[in-house]
């Protein structure tokens, strides 16, 4: 009788434990950051299920703002966009560092991200995947393009593409010898930089075939030869390099723009356990290497580059020597309100003839 009772309790508690552990993780992330095989391994190992929604920085913030931080349990915006979104909309909750296996993270990246995502004394972001924006160039047709402003060379008229977004403003500013990140805190100085960049980009407009929006769009334009030089992400250049050795990513002389995509917890996420499990799982070196192989970008995981394919490493080293790595301009946190100034500038460039 007693053993029967005890075993019932054990079975019941075991059942309730699995019930408490098995959660659905609603992940809001970028394309390639949650490959099928990684999800399958994670689900087999932990019992959680994962639902992936792919998005980009702006849409992630817009989605979470619409629900006051609900609807998703884990999101992956870039580290420079977290504090301003938190200040304006309060859509995230702080990271509980005691639940994160911190020694899986490269210490310098962990502390840099923590510093950049601290709002009112609490840390909101953990680093995951990093990469850069720079130039993707068809070296056979536009071998001279070494810097952002080279895209405005008259020889390339109608064969150039870039996005009409903030990275373009910042890249061109650096290329023109300005320092936009240093002016982040000074609205007047920043507006002055924006005005100079606006003049440059308006003058450059006849060179542009079209402003691209999505990663696939720019890859198609480059692959077909309709565009020979562009400002784009490093991974796009390396993927194209696999098909056509002439096309590759070039780290601009003024410096590639470095971004780090993070993990953040939406304020009203319901599956924190699953979210922390996912973070600790994907930061394991073997899993991090799998993600690098699909996404094309390296991660902040210690030893995560060991399992990365030799091809990708070769392309990375071809684009970045040590000097180029040292010259990467890492995005500092964007102060709230700065984007309104940039938006007005971008609108004027778009409307200019």
């Amino acid at each position: 009788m007693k053993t029967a009772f005890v075993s019932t309790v054990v079975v019941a508690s075991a059942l309730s434990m699995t019930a408490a552990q098995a959660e659905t993780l609603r992940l809001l992330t970028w394309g390639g950051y949650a490959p099928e095989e990684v999800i399958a391994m994670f689900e087999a190992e932990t019992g959680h299920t994962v639902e992936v929604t792919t998005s980009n920085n702006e849409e992630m913030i817009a989605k979470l703002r619409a629900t006051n931080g609900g609807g998703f349990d884990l999101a992956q915006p870039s580290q420079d966009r977290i504090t301003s979104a938190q200040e304006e909309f309060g859509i995230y909750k702080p990271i509980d560092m005691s639940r994160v296996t911190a020694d899986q993270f490269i210490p310098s990246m962990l502390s840099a991200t923590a510093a950049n995502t601290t709002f009112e004394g609490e840390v909101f972001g953990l680093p995951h995947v990093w990469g850069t924006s720079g130039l993707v160039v068809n070296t056979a047709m536009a071998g001279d393009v070494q810097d952002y402003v080279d895209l405005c060379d008259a020889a390339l008229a109608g064969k150039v593409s870039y996005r009409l977004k903030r990275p373009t403003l910042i890249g061109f500013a650096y290329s023109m010898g300005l320092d936009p990140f240093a002016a982040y805190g000074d609205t007047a100085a920043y507006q002055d930089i924006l005005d100079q960049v606006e003049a440059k980009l308006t003058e450059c407009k006849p060179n542009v075939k079209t402003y691209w929006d999505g990663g696939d769009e720019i890859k198609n334009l480059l692959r077909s030869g309709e565009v020979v030089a562009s400002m784009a992400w490093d991974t796009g250049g390396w993927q194209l390099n696999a098909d056509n050795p002439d096309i590759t990513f070039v780290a601009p002389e003024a410096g590639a723009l470095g971004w780090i995509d993070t993990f953040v917890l939406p304020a009203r996420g319901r599956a924190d356990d699953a979210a922390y499990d996912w973070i600790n799982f994907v930061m394991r070196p073997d899993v991090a290497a799998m993600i690098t192989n699909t996404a094309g970008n390296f991660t902040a995981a210690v030893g995560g580059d060991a399992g990365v394919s030799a091809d990708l490493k070769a392309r990375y080293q071809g684009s970045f020597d040590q000097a180029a790595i040292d010259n990467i301009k890492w995005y500092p946190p964007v102060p709230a309100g700065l984007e309104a100034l940039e938006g007005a500038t971008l609108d004027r460039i778009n409307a200019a003839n």
Partner: protein
Amino acid sequence: MSSDASRLGFYLLLAPILLWLVVLIILPHVGLFVVSISEKIGPREYEIGMGNYAAFFQEPLFWRTFARTAIMSILATALTLILGFPIAYYIAKLTQGRTKTTLFLMCMIPFWVSELVRTFGWMILLRETGVISNGLQALGLVSGPVEFLYNDAAIMVGLVYTSILFMVVPLVTTLDSLDNSLIEAGYDLGGSSTAVMREIVIPHAMPGIVSGCIVVFMLSLGNYLTPILLGGKDSLWFTGMIYTQFITRFNWELGSAFGFLLLILSSLVVFLGLKLSGQSLSETMGRS
């Protein structure tokens, strides 16, 4: 007692449409209006004011984009009418039986795939390395690749293609209801083809023309995909601007004001169109 029951029945039948209107149309618009009249003065601080509407009129870019969108939509509507009317006339008056059904079906087939797929189809045709450019080069008509994409003409092609069905269907319906003997009588009385068209066919088809035009104009004005994908670096479209305000600028307040202005101004254009053509909305929608 019986009148109570019938009244209950009436309200029950009315309930779905009322729910639809209140929950999906009126409430969201009230919400949109409330957002549109709040001005941001700091992080998480808002006050009520008309600043967002003022911004629309103060910044030339905004109202110019709106005017551009409206004018291009009117042009697209006119083009759709010019292209759609002969098609509809042919289907309604010059064919019968199976040919008629087949032709009608052929107009509809492109609409069985989504708008996105249709737009990508146009991108494949029009781009510099696309079908038309390569075809012209193969025929020796041009010496190098030609870019047809990324300009206003491409937008126009896309808009007309996307909306022509919505012009053809009401036109076929109204033209079908025109008695052939009236046309014959017109000719018997010595009227020329143009006179018959002007005096008999077009006046009869007017409600169909107007309702087709209203639908096509609204579809073009509110279209997002086609202008964004086919348009070039100068091709601003007002819906794209609303998207930008909401998503990339995080400026829901201005975006909401834009949305409201789009609603008001497009209603105004339709109202003017009805006045100019001498039609009333109830007659147009009732008869077609």
